């Protein structure tokens, strides 16, 4: 049986967290926006080069800051995925703030940043320069839940990093 790791998706509302999970776990996409209430937990086994790991993915309700409920949910997480909507610059600020808040709840855990909605790149407000700068401090992926571009790579990257830790 593969080892299991808990990862939590954090980000502002409507950045595409649930869509990324649906793409990653079930390889599906719906363009209908349904807000997440509370938490939805899914899992998927990811094969790494030397082993397999079961990622338990906690899809948390989108908020610009960490509320008490989400503080409860992230307890014990092995890794975090910060999700940003590339078309909303404000969602990048929210993700970075959530990251900062989460550090008070968790020990240093691996983090990856997903700049989502790559299919709408012509409407992106998040600049390439900002992404470049962020990628120097956190693994950053340009993703599209619609096309699937970058999604597997982002989860695989986090899976690799969370299994490297004891």
């Amino acid at each position: 049986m593969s080892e299991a790791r808990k990862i939590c998706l954090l980000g502002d509302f409507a950045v595409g967290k649930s869509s990324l999970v649906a793409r990653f776990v079930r390889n599906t996409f719906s363009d209908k926006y349904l807000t997440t209430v509370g938490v939805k937990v899914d899992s998927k086994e990811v094969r790494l080069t030397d082993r397999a790991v079961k990622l338990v993915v906690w899809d948390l309700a989108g908020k610009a800051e960490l509320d008490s409920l989400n503080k409860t949910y992230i307890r014990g997480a092995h890794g975090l995925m910060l999700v940003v909507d590339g078309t909303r610059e404000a969602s990048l600020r929210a993700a970075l703030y959530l990251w900062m808040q989460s550090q008070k709840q968790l020990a240093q855990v691996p983090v990856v940043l997903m700049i989502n909605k790559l299919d709408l790149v012509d409407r992106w407000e998040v600049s390439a320069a900002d992404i470049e700068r962020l990628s120097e401090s956190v693994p950053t992926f340009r993703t599209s839940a619609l096309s699937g571009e970058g999604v597997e790579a982002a989860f695989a990257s986090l899976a690799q990093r969370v299994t490297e830790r004891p």
Partner: protein
Amino acid sequence: MSKAASVVQGALTRFLMERSKPLILTVFRQRQVVSVEGDPALYGIRNGDFGAVLELVRNLLVGGDAECLTVWPLVDIGNRRHTSILWVPDKPNDHIIFTDAEMCGEELTERQQAANELALANVEKSKTIRELKAVRDELQAKSAALNEIHKFQRRLIDTLSHDLRTPLTSISGYAALLEPHLAENPVTMRALSAIQRNATYLKNLAENLLHLAAADNGSAPLLAHPFALEQLAEDVESIIRPMADGKRLRLNVDWHSTVQKMPVFDDLRLRQILLNLVSNAVRYTREGKVDVELRYDGDRLTMRVTDTGIGIASEYQETIFEPLNRGAQQGCDGAGLGLSIVKQLVEQMGGTIALQSAVGVGTRIQIVLPERAAAVEPVAARTEPSLRIQSERVIIVDDDPDVAEMLVWSLHEIGYLPQLMHDPAALLARVAEQPPGLIIIDVDLGVRSGLAVTQELRLSGYTGSIIVFSGANNTNTRQAAKAAGADAFLAKPLDMPKFLAWMKRLLPGA
């Protein structure tokens, strides 16, 4: 525990059990359900299949401590159903308690969905407003830049056409002066005729350019006057005749009115229309004739110009009235403005244009204009200014030596005693000393305005006649000249034959 406390506790337990509808699973090693209390169907569990909920609980325990009591509120268990899950470790079996959180979950979901959708709509609205503002700013900047270019173009056109008028006065005037002296020499007469033809062309071009500039800034209202149809026909013929003669074309100008009253139109605009049509006809006719017919029936004025020229191919007949369109008569000269101005004027006057043309045969353009007094600004009949000149001594004030000398020469030829002066100060002194019968003064004297000098002359008590002339042929300048005390205003380029004929009539003792 007291009896009362026991009763309260019992009631509370029953109440909470009823409201939360708990499902209690007792499980062995997180994988096997040992006992069930409650209704599994309320939590989407059918046919005793607990696999999915056990998998969910195992997932929830990842990263946590299975030896500790743990609660996970508002967990989505599929199909957007929510429950709170309580993990109660025990020996040898553990317990999982599901409580119905749907009551608050459903309401919360609806509220949050609505709030998020509203926030998203606001984000989009803000974005759209920002984009629209950016587009508006860009358009405003472009519009301002275009306006500047436009203003510059119009100023350029205005200046150019104005500056054309002064030398044209010289050219036409000297040509008219030379004519009687060269009449016997056919070579020099041909040369003179060419000069007159080209001067006429340039004059027409200057008028057209000025019209464009004026029409563009809205300063070209129609001014209706009663006028003599015969006079219009004569004017056009006298201007175009040298061009037609130079090309050995027959030019017939015919007019007819079925009523006694004079037509009421803006005669300057009619003249401009006719001059454009007839000069075009002459320009594009190599041999044969050009017929001009004017008909007035009391309600409508019909102008018809027929030529035996090169004609206009059918593919160009739609675009011939567009500005700067010279495709129809390639190889011929012309700025391509005339017909577009004709169209503009005819439309402004509420008239119609009909074109018939065949390549190699000729062209006929017919214009019908309704007499619509209400649509125009009626003014008194335009007549020659009434002047009385007391003495044949005339002072001419113009800083353009060519025009000034030409006027001196011409007036001298018909019996006046002209004197040329450049300095306005010297003029005032001269007039005070020996008042002339007439002063002809240019508006633009370089150092001073001729209008200011005119006003000073009047204030100094000069009562003789003053004629002001200018390259700026517009209502403002005319009105300013009158206000300054001028008896007459003449526009450059002067129609020298007409001007001299008039002056001849005014000669004291004529």
